């Protein structure tokens, strides 16, 4: 029971509290770098690392930080982490770093990270904050993967993944025959369209569940009403007797 509940918690967090398609945070990088699966994975890992460590550090220093300057302090923490991650990527995965370019630096102003620091890490324990960072980072990565899968497969016809350090192709599969790809999906227009589709999909799931919940509520109310009527009728019948 607790197992299934936990599992549902994981997926509902992925869909309902999805920072990108649910809350519209961190959209810039989602639109810009999701042309290939490689980019999405690299960016996702960078954000998970920065977000988790920043959540841990901020939950540690939050009690010591004066309230008036907490935002500059958090930003410095985040900027330092991003600088470190950027340098590591430059050293070990230079190809990936050059394609992601400024978007690694722009993780600093990614609303998800400052948002979680403000909303969660500053008032929760270290372990909870670390868990929150990993969960949020994963659901961000999940969104990136969904976007890049659609854009890469429709735009180039290939399902492809390569080693980020050596740039060698690990896996490549042609799903759409050459000449039948839809190149518009690799352009800016495709990014906006794919995002619109996925956001509408998430909204549709949410609407559907809300409707179901409302209907269940209605059915419950109707059943209660019917039961009340039945008891009233039986009372009447008794009185008549």
């Amino acid at each position: 029971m607790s197992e299934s509940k936990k599992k549902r918690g994981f997926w509902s967090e992925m869909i309902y509290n999805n920072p990108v398609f649910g809350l519209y945070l961190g959209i810039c990088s989602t639109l810009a770098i999701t042309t290939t699966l490689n980019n999405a994975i690299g960016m996702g890992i960078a954000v998970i690392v920065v977000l988790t460590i920043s959540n841990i550090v901020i939950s540690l220093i939050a009690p010591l930080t004066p309230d008036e300057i907490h935002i500059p302090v958090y930003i410095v923490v985040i900027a330092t982490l991003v600088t470190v991650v950027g340098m590591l990527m430059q050293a070990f995965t230079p190809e990936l770093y050059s394609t992601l370019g400024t978007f690694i630096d722009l993780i600093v102003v990614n609303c998800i990270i400052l948002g979680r620091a403000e909303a969660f890490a500053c008032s929760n324990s270290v372990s909870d904050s670390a868990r929150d960072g990993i969960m949020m980072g994963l659901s961000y990565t999940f969104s990136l993967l969904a976007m890049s899968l659609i854009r890469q497969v429709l735009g180039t016809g290939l399902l492809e993944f390569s080693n980020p350090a050596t740039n060698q192709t690990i896996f490549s599969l042609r799903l759409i025959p050459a000449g039948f790809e839809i190149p518009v999906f690799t352009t800016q227009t495709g990014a906006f369209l794919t995002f619109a589709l996925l956001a509408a999909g998430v909204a549709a799931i949410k609407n559907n569940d809300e409707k179901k919940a409302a209907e269940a509520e209605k059915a419950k109310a109707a059943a209660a009403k019917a039961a009340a009527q039945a008891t009233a009728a039986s009372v009447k019948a008794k009185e008549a007797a």
Partner: protein
Amino acid sequence: MNLLTLFLSALLINNVILSKFIGMCPFLGVSNKLSSAVGMGLAVIFVIFGASVLSWALYYYALVPLGLEYMKLICFILLIAAFVQFVQMFIKKTSPSLYKALGIYLPLITTNCAVLYVALDNITQGYTFIETLVNSIAVPAGFMLVLVIFATIRERLASADVPDAWKGNPIAFVVAAIMAIAFSAFAGLV
């Protein structure tokens, strides 16, 4: 580089929203009404211009001589936050009416990635001071142009009959996709 070419390419061809996807949060957040879009656009032009020029000076006159180029990210973000705070206090003191008009947009600008993007872009492209001035005006002007066009479309969209799941932001992204097609035609301009 020809300054006019630089201006046009930053304004239209490499438009910050439609081609670089930067500054999406205010693009979605304040585009419901034309008046707020104009206010936000003006505030962004002002802040980006000031912050980028200051960042350029900070980089070439403080960080490079000290050999601290790798600190640029931390320094720039602090400079931007401080600059926004300062502008806010200055406007509040000198022009209360302007503060009323722009006030609520100013704190939001610190987290607008376009500000940091322009400051970093001026450095990575190796622009001279004059080119930095032109780029720092053209990029936010392009932002405002697209924001205002988008806001006028969204005002009409508010009264349109849209399927439930597409209401709000999803349909706005479809509008942005169509605008991106239109703007991609500018690619042949230069």
